[in-house]
C-alpha cells in the first residue's frame, strides 16, 4: 500500500454506474457462479459466507495466512456485483480523522480570508458586540457543514447510493481503540459526527475485514462478524484457481506444479508458499515455455515460491524427490 495514509482510502470504481439497486441474491450457487465469473474460484464456505453476509447484513471477518486471497475476495465481490470497492488499510496509529472524516481546514481558512471583507457588511452598523454576535449566530455553523467535510473511507462507504464493498484490510494492525471505534459502524452501519449528527448508510455495504492474526482481535468485534477462515486450498481447488488465473497453461504442467506446491506445504518451512505464489510461479513457468517440470527448472525458479534463504535451502535437499513425485502424479514417468 501507499506510504501516505491520506491516500489509503481510494475508490476503485469499476462499476458500470448503473443505478439499479442490487437484487437480493437467490442462492449460494449464484454466489459461486458470480465469483468465478469475476475470476475468483471460491470454496463452498466462502460462497456461503458472502451469501449470509448479504442476507444477514453482517460483516465478514476473514482470517488466514498471507496470500490465500483474502483481499482478492473483496475485489472480486465488488467486480461481480459491480459495486464500488472502498478499501481502508489499517496500520498502527490509524484514527478517526483518517478513517471517518476530517474537516477541510485549508478550505475553511481560505474562505474566512476571502469573506473577511464581507463580515463588515454582515454585521452592519451594530452598536455593540452583543448585537453583532447575534447577527453572526444567525448564519449558523457554516464552516462546520457538509461542504467543509472531507469524508474518509468509512463515511464514504456509508454514502454510496447503491451500496459498496467495504474492505477493512489487516484490522489486526490497527490499535485496540480503533477496533472499538469500528463497532458502531459494523453493527448499525451508522456513524456519529458530532457537528453534523448521525449518518446512516443508504444501503448497508458488504463489509469484509481481513486479519493475519498478528494479534488476537477483541471478542466484541468477533461477535459482530461472521468468521471465515481461508486456509490453503486442496489440490483440486488450487488447480482450478491456477487455471482461472493463468489461462492457457498446459494441463499436465498445471497438475505437476500444483502437486509440487502441495508437497512443499507439507515441509517444515518458515513461510509456506501461498496461492498467490503458486500463481506467480505458474506465470513464470508459462513465460519460460516450460512443459515438463524438471529439477533444474524448479531449482532456478524456487525463489518465486519461497521467500527465505533458509527455506530454499531446506527445500533444496528434497527437490528431486518432490519433482519426480509431481511428474508421476501428472502421468509423466
Amino acid at each position: 500500500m501507499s506510504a501516505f495514509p491520506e491516500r489509503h482510502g481510494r475508490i476503485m470504481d469499476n462499476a458500470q454506474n448503473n443505478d439499479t439497486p442490487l437484487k437480493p441474491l437467490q442462492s449460494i450457487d449464484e454466489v459461486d457462479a458470480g465469483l468465478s465469473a469475476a475470476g475468483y474460484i471460491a470454496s463452498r464456505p466462502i460462497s456461503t459466507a458472502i451469501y449470509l453476509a448479504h442476507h444477514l447484513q453482517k460483516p465478514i471477518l476473514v482470517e488466514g495466512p498471507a496470500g490465500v486471497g483474502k483481499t482478492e475476495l473483496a475485489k472480486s465481490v465488488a467486480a461481480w456485483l459491480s459495486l464500488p470497492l472502498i478499501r481502508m488499510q489499517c496500520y498502527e496509529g490509524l484514527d478517526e480523522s483518517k478513517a471517518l472524516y476530517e474537516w477541510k481546514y485549508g478550505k475553511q481558512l481560505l474562505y474566512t480570508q476571502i469573506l473577511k471583507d464581507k463580515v463588515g457588511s454582515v454585521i452592519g452598523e451594530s452598536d455593540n458586540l452583543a448585537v453583532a454576535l447575534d447577527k453572526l449566530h444567525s448564519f449558523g455553523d457554516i464552516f462546520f457543514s457538509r461542504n467543509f467535510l472531507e469524508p474518509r473511507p468509512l463515511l464514504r462507504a456509508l454514502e454510496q447510493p447503491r451500496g459498496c464493498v467495504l474492505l477493512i484490510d489487516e484490522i489486526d494492525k490497527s490499535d485496540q481503540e480503533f477496533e472499538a471505534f469500528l463497532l458502531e459502524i459494523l453493527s448499525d452501519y451508522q456513524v456519529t459526527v458530532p457537528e453534523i449528527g448521525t449518518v446512516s448508510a443508504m444501503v448497508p455495504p458488504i463489509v469484509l475485514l481481513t486479519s493475519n492474526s498478528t494479534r488476537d482481535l477483541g471478542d466484541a468485534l468477533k461477535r459482530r462478524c461472521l468468521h471465515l477462515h481461508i486456509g490453503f486450498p486442496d489440490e483440486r481447488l488450487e488447480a482450478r484457481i491456477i487455471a482461472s488465473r493463468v489461462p492457457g497453461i498446459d494441463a499436465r504442467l498445471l497438475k505437476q506444479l500444483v502437486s509440487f506446491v502441495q508437497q512443499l506445504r507439507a515441509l517444515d518451512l518458515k513461510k509456506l508458499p501461498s496461492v498467490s505464489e503458486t500463481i506467480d510461479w505458474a506465470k513464470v513457468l508459462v513465460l519460460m515455455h516450460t512443459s515438463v517440470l524438471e529439477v533444474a527448472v524448479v531449482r532456478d525458479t524456487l525463489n518465486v515460491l519461497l521467500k527465505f534463504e533458509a527455506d530454499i535451502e531446506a527445500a533444496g535437499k528434497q527437490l528431486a524427490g518432490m519433482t519426480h513425485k509431481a511428474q508421476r502424479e501428472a502421468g509423466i514417468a
Partner: protein
Amino acid sequence: MPGRVDAPTASEPLRRFLQVARGAGLRVSAAEGIDAARALDVIGYGDRAALKDTLGLVLAKTPDEKALYHEAFELYFKHEAFSAAIDESDDGAAAGAADPGQGSGNALSPLLTEDNRAGLAAAMEAAARESGVENIRFFTQKNLYTRRILMAMGLRAVEDEIEALRRDETPQGMERAGLLESRVARLREAVRDLVERNMLLFAKGENEQYREELLKSARLSNIERRDMERMRVLVRQMAKKLAARYAKTRRRRLRGQLDVRRTLRKNMGWGGIPFVTVWKQKRIEKPRVMVLCDVSGSVAAMSQFLLMFLYALNEALSDIRSFAYSGSLIEVSEILEKEPVEQAIEKIMEAIGFGSSNYGNAFADFEDGWMKLVTNKTTLIILGDARGNHNEPRTEILARLSQRSKRIIWLNPEYPTLWGTGDSDMRRYAPFCNLLMECSTLRHLERAISGILEGSS
C-alpha cells in the same frame, strides 16, 4: 410409536446444538445464537454441508474453535449412523420378520418384529428427549439413562411378551421370543451408544471446565502428576492473556490538558491557529522487572509452576531478568529465552534446583553480580518461602535492595499463618518488602502478576 414423536419446533435442534457447542468449549453468546437462528432461516436445514458451513461461520471464531466445532457438529448430527449400525448387525432376521399377526398391543414389539429402523430411531430419539438425557454429567449415570430410555420406549411390555411366549412353549412362540430377544439386545446396544454420545456431547465440556476451575484454585504444591499437562496449558493461557494485555506500550490521555508545544507544532501550517488540538498523554512504560525464583527442595513442587510462569512473563515483558536460587543464585534469563519451556525448566532445575535454600547466600550472590543493574525503576519480585535453614538471613542486603529499587514484591507460597514459624525468616524480611502476598494457587499468581503489570505506570 412414530406418531408420538412430537415434531420439534424448528429452533429446537439448534438450541440443543448450541448447548452442545458450548459444552465442547466454544464460547457462544446469546447474540451469536440469534445470529445462528437467523442464518438458518436463510439457509434452511436441507443441505448438511451448507448447514455445517453456516453454523461454522456464525459460531466458531478462531481456528481452534473451528476444530472444536467440526468435532461437535459431526458428533451431534450423526443420527443416520444408528440405522446403518443395525443394518450391519442384521443377519438371519428375515425369517422372523415375515411373521405377521402376532402383534400385541405393545407399540415397541411390532417395531422390533418388523425391524423398522426408522421407526426405532425416531422412538429412541423421542424417549431420549423425554428422559432428559442431555442432563447426563458423569459416566456412572450411563446405565441409569440407558434403562430410563428403554423403559420410556416400552421395553417392559416387550419383556412381558417374551416371558409369555416362553411360558406357552409353542415352537412358533419360542422362535418369536428368540427373535425378539436378539432384537432387544441390539436395541439396548444402540441406546447405550446414544447415551454415550450424549455424554460426550453434553458432559465433556462441563467436566473440563469444572476441572480447570478446580485446578486454578488448588494449591500448586498439591497438584497431581496427571494434572500436570492440563496445568501447563492453563499457565500458558494465563500468560498469553497477560501478555496480550500488557505487551504494548500503552498511553493514557490526560483529560483536558493541552500539550501547548505539540499543538503549536502541529498547527504551524495554518499560521499557528490551533485547528488541531493535541492533548498531553502519559506513556505507561513496560515495567523493568527482576525476578528471583526459589527452586530449592522445600518449594520444589511449586517451582515448576513458578518457572513456567517466569517463562511466560519473559515473553510478555521485554525488560526482564530472571534468576533462580537455592543454595546460591544464577541468572537464567538466557535459558528461558532460548529454550522451549519444558527443556528450560529441566535445565534450570538440573543446574541449581532441589538444593537446600540459603537466602543469605543467594542475596549476597545477587548483590555481587547484579546489584548495579537495579535502578529506581526496577521492580524486584521474589518468589520463595523464606525458609533459609537457619542460615544468616542477611536482611541488610534486602534493605539495600529496597533502597535502590522501585519496590520489592515478595510472593510466598505458604499460608500466612506459617510465616515466621520454624526456620522461616519471612517476618524479618517483611519490613523491606513493599508488598507481601500469599501465592499458592494459579489464581493468586495471576492476580499478583496482573497487579504488578498494571501498577507499573
